[in-house]
């Protein structure tokens, strides 16, 4: 009986598919579908660049979903030279249009190559270059950890703290002018605010218990964080220029890792609900906690909401650690690559994450649609908890 039913289903599918196929041949589908983990790279060919300039361009484009091929198979043709300064051209092979043709001067050759990568990517509709962006991360040297900032590829890394203790969980203020992070400097777990231009810093949250996991709202006006000052680890939100944390959750369970929706209305975080580790969201002005279902994986944690609002990237702890995405309303999860603590780039397609190796953690970049991954340049020590400046 069941077998007959299955045959019926099969034939139904077959017949409808034939119908669709013939209907489909009438028009050419020109939309480029962007599906996490299942999208083909955009093919480019590159010629004329050498050494560091060629390496930088390849790295920059690869982590933004481009693949390299020869000129007669590519959609975009990139050419140029880097004798002294860098010159670059890019054309669309299909409609023969020129996207960019430019000579660069000043700064380093590295920076010129990044600038050209951005000019090319920005010329493609619905794309936003990230080659001149920055990341912050935790660098653990064994006994202590400090916060570093670097170019998005890990180059030009500089420490921004020298506390000689545990410093963790950096988070950028929009506009790259300042960072929030957790430091144990005062023999206590406190959240600090540090101005990156003046170097000035101040304790932002120093309440009884532990003050953890700062997350700045997209407009910079509020900070979500995990405090235990009232006796349990709960989610709080505070105005950036005041000291008036408002308690949003009231549970004995351990909430962690808040992040904001791009419109600033929601705070997403990890919590234990009814004995089950879940992603949750709550209105930034308070209200009921809502579960975000993550069908297919266990123990979701460390959410980060994409700037375009379409996906939440997070870590699933399932013996190993997996970088996953789920729509903000919840649903089936797309598992991408092994890793933890992902943070979205401003382009809403690349994420930086940490990967465990035999010698500690290392940062990598992942282009979510194509699943293309590259390691970033490492600072001596264990690099983790990356935060992408947006």
């Amino acid at each position, binding site marked *: 009986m069941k077998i007959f039913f299955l045959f019926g289903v099969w034939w139904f599918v077959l017949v409808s598919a034939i119908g669709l196929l013939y209907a489909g041949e009438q028009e050419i589908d020109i939309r480029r579908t962007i599906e996490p983990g299942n999208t083909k790279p955009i093919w480019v060919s590159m010629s004329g660049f050498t050494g560091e300039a060629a390496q930088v361009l390849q790295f920059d484009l690869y982590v933004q979903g481009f693949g390299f091929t020869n000129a007669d198979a590519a959609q975009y043709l990139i050419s140029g030279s880097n004798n002294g300064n860098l010159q670059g051209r890019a054309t669309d092979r299909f409609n023969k249009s020129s996207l960019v043709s430019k000579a660069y001067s000043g700064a380093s050759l590295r920076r010129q190559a990044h600038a050209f990568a951005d000019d090319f990517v920005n010329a493609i509709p619905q794309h936003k270059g990230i080659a001149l962006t920055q990341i912050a991360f935790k660098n653990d040297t064994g006994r202590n950890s400090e916060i570093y900032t670097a170019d998005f590829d890990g180059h030009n890394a500089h420490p921004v703290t020298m506390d000689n203790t545990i410093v963790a969980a950096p988070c950028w203020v929009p506009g790259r002018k300042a960072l929030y992070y957790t430091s144990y400097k005062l023999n206590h777990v406190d959240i600090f605010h540090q101005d990156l231009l003046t170097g000035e810093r101040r304790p932002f949250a120093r309440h009884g218990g532990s003050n953890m996991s700062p997350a700045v709202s997209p407009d910079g006006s509020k900070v979500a964080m995990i405090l235990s000052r009232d006796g349990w680890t*709960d989610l709080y939100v505070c105005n950036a220029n005041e000291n008036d944390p408002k308690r949003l959750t009231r549970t004995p369970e*351990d909430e962690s890792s808040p992040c904001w929706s791009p419109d600033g209305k929601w705070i997403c975080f990890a919590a234990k609900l009814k004995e089950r580790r879940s992603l*949750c969201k709550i209105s930034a002005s308070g209200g*009921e906690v809502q579960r975000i279902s993550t069908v297919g994986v266990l123990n979701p944690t460390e959410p980060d909401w994409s700037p375009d609002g379409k996906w939440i990237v997070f870590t699933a702890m399932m013996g190993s650690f997996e970088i996953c995405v789920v729509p903000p309303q919840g649903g089936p999860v797309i598992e991408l690559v092994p890793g933890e603590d992902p943070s979205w780039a401003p382009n809403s397609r690349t994420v930086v994450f940490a990967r465990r190796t035999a010698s500690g953690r290392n940062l990598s970049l992942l282009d979510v649609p194509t699943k293309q991954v590259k390691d970033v340049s490492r600072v001596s020590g264990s690099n983790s908890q990356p935060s992408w400046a947006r």
Partner: protein
Amino acid sequence: MKLTNFSKLILFGLIVTLPAVGCRTKSSYLTGLPKTGTTGSVVDSGIGKALPDDGNKVKSDDVTGTSFADPNLRKDWPRDREIFQADTVHFDFDSSIIKSEEKPKVAAVADYIKAHGSDAVEIEGHCDARGTEEYNRSLGERRALALREELIRLGIEASRVDTISYGEDRPAVAGNDEAAYRKNRRAEFVLEKHQNLVGLNSPVQNNDPNK
């Protein structure tokens, strides 16, 4: 060309049909997920199930908790890490529940604090490295808070119990096996000695467990 499409179509048909067959063998595509081991405490992945009865809404438990003293109050008090060394409490994976065999240690600490009315205690929460970092920082704090509640239950004033979470950043032992993990899932008690003459005689000791 059409023939190729047709063979693709047959494949497509098969692919669409297969899950229907798979239903009878219940989520066969999930065999890759560990059922126990490091995610032992989670038994329900929720896969293929409807949302709980209350849908997406989860009512907060409305637990008030017990507030802390000002963190500056005992900032410069000398710390004694030795005195409660034997009383380190260990926890199960992903758990902050105080096991019954650990409760006598908490009682011993409570007795000491009761007998030394001007001293206070700081509880350090620690985790093994199998969680992510901020998850562990919250879990470590949750472990310290569980012990704090127990001390309060045993009659210690809330204002005399501080907590600090080190997450996975200060393991007791190195290593990536269960023996090491078991030792690292812990909370340590540190005595905060009452100090009136701050900075006169005794140097301020660093609170960091490994200094």
